[in-house]
């Protein structure tokens, strides 16, 4: 199954906007493996009662999720290689979205700053 993809994936998102560097099939395969491994790690963590009770549980899960999110956006959506305008169009609203979620969490008392 590999040979039909080997040469093509490198060109998968090639050219319209003058970008030179694009992931190869090997890169995509590694990305799929990494995403699967991170998902497996997330589920594994979920089933460790002592870790679930610890303070690290939520930050670790959020970090792993953010890594998966960034990998898919950067490589599968090829934002890493694409025009800056696309990056702005995506990261601008994404930043607003994340800030909205965090603000609402503070507003409704799910998050608090302890001094």
């Amino acid at each position, binding site marked *: 199954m590999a040979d039909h993809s080997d040469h093509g994936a490198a060109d998968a998102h090639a050219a319209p906007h003058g970008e030179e560097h694009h992931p190869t099939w090997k890169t995509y395969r590694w990305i799929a493996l990494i995403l699967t491994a991170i998902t497996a790690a997330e589920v594994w963590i979920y089933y460790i009662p002592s870790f679930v009770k610890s303070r690290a549980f939520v930050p670790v899960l959020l970090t792993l999720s953010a890594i998966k999110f960034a990998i898919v956006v950067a490589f*599968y*959506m090829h934002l890493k290689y694409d025009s800056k305008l696309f990056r702005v169009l995506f990261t601008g609203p994404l930043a607003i979205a994340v800030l909205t979620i965090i603000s*609402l969490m503070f507003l409704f008392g799910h998050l608090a700053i302890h001094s």
Partner: protein
Amino acid sequence: MATAAIAHDDTHAAGGHPPTTTGLDHKKIAMWAFIGSECMLFASLISTYLIYKGRSLVGPYPHEAWVSPTGQHFNAILNIPVTSMSTFVLLMSSLFMVLAHSAVVRGDRKYSRFWLAMTALAGATFLGFQAFEFTSFVHEGLTIRTNLFGSSFFTLTGFHGAHVTAGVIWLVTLLFIDMKRGLRPDEALNVDLCALYWHFVDVVWIAIFTLIYLIK
């Protein structure tokens, strides 16, 4: 100036789309703008879920068992093994989508059809998992009207499921076109737009899986 203009036009010609002031295809800009707006839509739905989290007065609850005043026992309702499988299927569908786009770019009709079909099949499988999950929840006593968890959960995951459904329809349409007359390499942008949408649906699920299913 004239040289620059000519060079600019050449770039557009190489890109396979009409000249634009940005040098980028309008459809792709529109797709990214749409994806940006979708980020905010899902942020509002996720916020709503998180705000209502732990505030349901009656069960069933996502991660804890519950005994009703009438003595009826309800288990924790989320089924993590099943959802982990559906998450894996959706992640793999993103890989299939990349391979489908790759095949269209190099004009390989055999594999473009195969990978488009595989992506659509993976999307349909994910929807099957979601239908199974929703049905089992209803059988276990959780509907959209039961409590705050039910309302926000079904709204959020239902909206995501609707997006996946739209993506599957889009993929099947592309597959149909490919089977009927073949998708040419100069039409790869149309597959690219579908791929962007599909990957976005995937990243939204990455967030939902962690925030809703895994964090207790």
